[in-house]
């Protein structure tokens, strides 16, 4: 599904040049669950942003389903992103002014799904995530675990092929964290490819493969399953 070759990303300020990704190469197959680990500043989040088509690499190649997307323009990236990729963030990133239902509905609106169909799909998803009773609540009224379940519901409501998770349990206690990891595992078993950035060895053990990074490069790869 994903193949990157010699990917480079350099952040420049007036005086300092930071190499975030240094000729990074790897591949992720359809249906895989990959964990990316490494110390802070090793380039994990930069990698996730590039894989999620939120950021451009400076050089190298990035094939998504066999199509070179490294230098797609903004419109094409947004289009590919909304059809194929779901995001789960550490800080949930729900929109405070929208209810649970409206938050989950958002990706479908941008996909141009009709109102009746949207309602059906959002309700199905909320039911599946066991937060249907909270549909009219605002994010501030929910616990961390519930907010992350809403975020996962939002990420998968448009049935993406790939889910990118940036420390999805980082702001949760262990029981809520485990619940979210179970949710991700379920989604993976149903065929969704997952790439998860994490600091937690415990969470990483849910994956099939762990890629360890240091200074913008892959150091080791452990295959777990």
């Amino acid at each position, binding site marked *: 599904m994903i193949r990157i070759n010699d990917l480079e990303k350099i952040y420049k300020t007036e005086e300092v040049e930071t190499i975030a990704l240094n000729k990074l190469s790897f591949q992720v197959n359809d249906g895989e669950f990959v964990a990316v680990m490494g110390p802070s500043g090793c380039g994990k989040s930069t990698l996730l*942003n590039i894989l*999620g088509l*939120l*950021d451009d690499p400076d050089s190298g190649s990035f094939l998504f389903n066999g199509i070179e997307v490294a230098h797609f323009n*903004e*419109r094409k990236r*947004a*289009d590919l*992103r*909304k*059809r194929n990729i779901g*995001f789960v*963030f550490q*800080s949930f*990133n*729900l*929109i405070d*002014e929208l209810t649970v239902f409206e938050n989950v509905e*958002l*990706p479908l609106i*941008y*996909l141009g799904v009709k109102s009746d169909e949207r309602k059906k799909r959002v309700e199905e998803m909320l039911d599946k995530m066991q937060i249907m009773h909270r549909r009219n609540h605002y994010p501030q009224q929910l616990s961390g675990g519930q907010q992350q379940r809403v975020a996962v519901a*939002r990420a998968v409501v448009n049935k993406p092929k790939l889910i990118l998770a940036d420390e999805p349990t980082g702001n949760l206690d262990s029981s809520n964290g485990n619940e979210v990891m179970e949710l991700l595992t379920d989604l993976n078993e149903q065929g969704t490819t997952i790439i998860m950035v994490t600091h937690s060895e415990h969470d990483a053990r849910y994956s099939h493969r762990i890629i360890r990074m240091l200074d913008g490069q892959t150091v080791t790869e452990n295959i777990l399953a």
Partner: protein
Amino acid sequence: MLKNYFKIAFRNLWRHRVFSFINILGLTVGMTAGFLIFLYVRFELSYDSFHSNTDRIYRVVSDIKTPTEVIKAAGPNGCSLVSIKLSTQNLPKTIASIENKWNALIPARPFSYYFLDEFFDKQFRSEERLGKLFLNFSVLAIIISCLGLLGLASYSTMQRTREIGIRKVLGASVPNIVNLLSRDFLKLVAIAILIASPIAWYAMHGWLLDFAYRIGIGWWIFVIAGIMAVLIAIATVSYQAMKAAIANPVKSLRVE
């Protein structure tokens, strides 16, 4: 301590320099307009006040036919202003004759005169001046409002940076975001138009009542003014909206 406060205040102004610039500019234009209005009102209030008995000037209309009768009616203790309809043939002679009669009947009051058409002309000149003044102040008001709107737009965009980032991650396109941000401001403009139209109609109607021959106030005037207001607002807000929509969502989400 005070020095420290100023240092931090200046740093903040510099960090949001576009926003600060817009606000300071808006404040400057607003204050200038305020001063101008104050000076104008002061000038208008002082106008004509050099007549010692301003409140005792009257205009008398009567159907008396001959100048002698008119002047008699005015009398030595009567009014100081008399309107007379004259034939324009041999005007200097007629005026000289009126003056003679006036001086004979009311020698205590000096004779001075003016023609009504000249008076009307002068009055319309003041309307014209008022029109010009209104135009200038309207332009000023529009500039101030635009600056206010621009400030509001940049503030609101700054507040919604994270939301815009999230929406972009979820697949919102640049037009989606521009639409989202502009829509809110267009609502404000629509409300402003709804409030302003009846007030403008009422004021215009009152003003037009002063004229014997006047134009009607068509509904289309308000439609055109409304469309212009919307276009100006779109032009004002779109820059901020575009800037926010084009920005990289990674940056806005990282701020958190």
